């Protein structure tokens, strides 16, 4: 049962990483145009820089 003292913090940490990633993605407006993103992946002429964010 001693393994639990490692496993539980690890699982909580990984979950928290997921949560932070979700909050970051939301704050940087990444869910604003899901339809457009689905199509953008097909573009070949897209520049390397991330696109300017919409306010």
């Amino acid at each position, binding site marked *: 049962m001693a393994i639990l003292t490692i496993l539980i913090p690890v699982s909580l940490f990984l979950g928290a990483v997921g949560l932070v990633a979700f909050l970051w993605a*939301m704050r940087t407006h990444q869910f604003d*145009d899901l339809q457009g993103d689905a199509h953008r992946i097909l573009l070949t002429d897209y520049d390397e820089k991330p696109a300017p964010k919409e306010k």
Partner: protein
Amino acid sequence: MALTDDHVQLAACPACVVVSPSDRVAAIRAQAARIMLSLPGAEGAGAISAVEGALRAFPGVRSARVNLSLRRVTVEAEPHLVAADLIPVLAAVGQEAHELDPGLLSSTETDRQGRALLMRIGVAFFSMMNIMLLSVAVWSGAEDATRDLFHFISGVIALPTVAFCGQPFFRSAWASLRQGRLGMDVPISLALILASSISVYETLHSGEKAYFDAAVMLSFFLLLGRWLDHRSRALARSAAEELAALEVPRAIVLDGAKEVVLPIAEVAVGDLVLVRPGGRMPVDGVVTAGTSEIDRGLLTGESLPVFAGPGTVVSAGEVNLTGPLTVQVTAAGRESSLHRMADLVAVAESAKTRYTTLADRASRLYSPLVHLLSFSAFAFWMWKTGGDIRYAINISAAVLIITCPCALGLAVPAVITAASGKLFRKGVLIKNGTALERLAEVDTVVFDKTGTLTMGAPEPLGLEALPAEALPVLGALARASAHPLAQALAARLPTTPLDDLREVPGYGVEGRLNGALVRLGRAEWVGAEALALTATYLSLNGQTHAVAFTDHIRPGAEAAIAGLRAQGIAVRLVSGDTEAAVAAFAARIGIADWVAGALPAEKAALVQGLGAEGHKVLMVGDGLNDTGALAAAHVSISPAQALDAARVASDIVLLGRDLSAIADAVFIARQAARRMVQNFGISAAYNVVAVPLALVGAATPLAAALAMSLSSISVSLNALRLRPWRS
């Protein structure tokens, strides 16, 4: 209030320098840095790269970003660029573009609310997953110290989560308690608080049952319902705002001899405004120069044009038909009759929000019942166990959690999201949250004629009855004018050479055929007797001929009427037009029940009268004269081409030109209302099984979790079962 304040400010500022229109344009150019364009035709990856590529290559554009979900592009540009510079650039790559007024797209506020909800959902989901992990271990038999440790960790995760995620519920529960009502959020908040505090107590005393998982799961599912609700509202609102923002209203202001294009908001009282033939009056005013005919159809519903010359008072929204008019502004922007009408509508709107929705009725029944059940369980077990408070509170908390309105919270939003999504794809935009439910109850439809059932495009009648030699003369005269009636004739008739052809704005067209004067135009000018119908008159060889017109029927109008009748709905027609015109049209489209010559107030009174007889009226109209009736009806629909004020007054907007979507909308609304009732039934059924278990003290946290998730999932699946209508 704001109106009077502005007034006072204007009057109290005699020293204010009047800025010339050209300077006002310069001021606008200097600040225009962010341009928004609507791209109705944008589809797929090709459109994104074409639009962004073309715009980025244009000098002065700093960046361009397409939002495909909203069909919109946002351009950051050098200050000197305006939208009109960019529209041809997009036309060159095959994209239709329209300017949007960014000031009217106030989506940031709703956006922030949506994001806050989404963040709470994210947090609740994270906690739910982690707590569930620990709870599964407890359910499958963890004991003693392990169970206590797991409960303890769950509590450390759950308490901050409930405190953060429960805020929307706590706040609205508090608000409804202060008003002395028992809203749906009161039992929710009570369940959250009671479940958390009991679990803390049990954890500290090594108890067997902790409901941390239930508390967090409850907030997750309820937040999901809230978010769905918010999203369908926000989508409808942004689409409605876009319709309004599409009409960036502009006026041509005369600055000395120069013509300057200004947004309406910049036009001041006393300015001289030029209105070209075919243009809509942007302001209220008095004609100072020019003669013409004006179409007051959108304001009054009459299809006969009216003469306008110096001294004629014109109102915003009227259409100038034949000659250019110079109008001195008496009221602009918020003061104009168009806007005052919209303000009246806003008052009527607020009356409609008092409609009691299905969800309201359910919660009114449900909240007291839940409290009563929970309290009587507490009282019973106190008596039965001889005062064991801990056991009694445990039972009453279990009752609250099991009856939790998870499924109830999802029952309505899930159906509304599914139904409004389906209708949006058909070009029907639901603007108001309760409109779908009200539409389902409709038993009578009242249609407006001009612009709603008809396209507002005239079609000549009985041309073959005219003498053969008159037709080419008619055609030749008609070609000299831009008047809609003349255009309709010109498109259908041959021509012949005439001398001295000239248009007399406001009266008609004249010319000479072999030296004899021929005229086409208004009855009194031509010397003919006026008909009651929309008509134009020809004088030829000392004789006069009348050419009557009728209106094109809007596509899908017949299908819509047939579809509505098939669903058992009575169809009526009410119009501001003349009796003869309405009678002919009603016979053509097959409506027996019609009223002609109705003034705006009479239309509203007719709709109210039907309502007073117990009918649920759906009003379909497009003009300013319909706004009263639209606001008075149980539910109302207007086409996208309607006047702004009419669209504001209606609950539903048809985005396409086709009317047949109305029958679909009623069908889907009725189906949606059935699904909502079924969903309430489903969640009630789960309660019927689970509540007795909770009352006798046999409910485990596992049973609570199962009941909650199963009922939420089945309610959502049921919402997706909406089918389109096949006639």
